[in-house]
């Protein structure tokens, strides 16, 4: 049975261990944005033994490249991008303390294994609901790689940002569970 949680970042091992695939979560507090190009740079920094531009311990990363804000708005439309493109980078960040990722679409075994081993969860946000999700973001500040434009790393403050747990810390996958229920063989 799906439960609903209101959580504030940073997330602890104890908090993410409570969550199960299918649970609805409303996130509050600070989350960070990163897509393909930014992920490559973050992992390069780790390889070089350098510090990341934000504290990864307990952090939540949102895979998003927003539209430019209209005058007076903190951000434009901001729905999730497809997550598999970050699969080769995410396990490394999870091992460093990342606790949550927000995106859409399937993750590979490397990511779901890391979610179990280091206690992290993968949240799905509704793809294509960019206008609605953008309004849940109250402030946005570029903290790294401004030259990447929409792919720059942004620090966001969110209020009741709606997500669903896709992959939990126990190896469950909502996409597999949901599809199995309705597939006609």
């Amino acid at each position: 049975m799906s439960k609903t949680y209101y959580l504030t970042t940073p997330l602890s091992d104890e908090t993410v261990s409570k969550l199960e695939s299918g649970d609805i979560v409303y996130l509050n507090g600070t989350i960070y944005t990163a897509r393909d190009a930014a992920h490559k740079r973050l992992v390069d920094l780790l390889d070089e033994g350098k510090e990341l531009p934000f504290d990864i311990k307990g952090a939540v990363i949102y895979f998003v490249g927003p539209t430019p804000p209209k005058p007076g708005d903190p951000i434009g439309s901001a729905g999730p991008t497809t997550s598999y493109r970050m699969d080769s980078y995410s396990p490394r960040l999870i091992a460093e303390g990342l606790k949550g990722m927000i995106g859409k679409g399937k993750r590979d075994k490397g990511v779901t294994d890391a979610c179990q081993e280091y206690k992290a969860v993968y949240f799905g946000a509704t793809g294509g609901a960019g206008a609605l999700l953008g309004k849940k973001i109250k402030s946005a500040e570029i903290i790294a790689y401004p030259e990447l434009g929409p792919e720059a790393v942004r620090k966001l403050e969110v209020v009741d940002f709606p997500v669903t747990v896709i992959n939990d810390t126990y190896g469950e996958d909502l996409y597999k569970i949901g599809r199995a229920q309705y597939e006609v063989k």
Partner: protein
Amino acid sequence: MREIAYEEIVKNVRDIIVYSASNLPEDALNAMKEAYKNEKSPVSREVLKQLLENADIASSEARPLCQDTGLAVFFVKIGADVKVVGGLLTAAINEGTEKGYIEGYLRASTCHPFSRLNNKDTVGYNLPAIIHLDIVEGDKIYIEYAAKGGGSENVSRAKVFPPAAGKQGVIDYVRECISDAGPNPCPPLTVGVGIGGTFEKAVISSKHALFRNIGSVNEDPEMAEMEAEIKVELNKLGIGTMGMGGTETVLAVHIEANPCHIASLPVSVNVQCHSSRHTHITI
């Protein structure tokens, strides 16, 4: 010879780009409402409700429906009796595209294939537009436009089958494509299937098939029947809205078929997400 000013084309293109970004066309909106009515999964229904709410917010507040405002794709037919005055037709479409993306606060999503940097300094903001040109009789310009997002484009595929593969081979190929894609292309989907022609003709036909209004019936009864059959097959996959599981995975299947070489059966599948931003104008 009818003269059409370069600036008039720029303005028209700019306007359809800005409007399309935040207003889901009626055919797509109706198809989403229909999916909401028919969907059996409560989770998928909830997500569909969120998407309909998103469409309301986008339209009433002039915000982009999705942050992926796409690459700008055009199918353009220019009448043989039209003379564009003041510049080239393709340059006008590109200029209108850039103006639309900048003035509409839309995302520039083009980048160099390897550096991944946006090349606006050398090429332009979300340029170049993807333009397919054709020439027809008459004194008008017909422009079909769609904003094509990356998530759905990434699951598209093409293959040249031997003729023996036949109809069943095509159906199996489309099913495999959509099944493997799962939640990634943002279902419920419009599935464009290009059949026949040469390799590239099939691919372009599968793209153009996505520009057709959802709910319209194929003029070729054989293809209309095949579209209906494939739709039923795909909805058996159980993928549902955004992959949450459900009965409504595709809104429509559109086929564009062409004569082909006696040795080949080219097939291409191009996928459009639920945010099917497409429109057409005549100048």
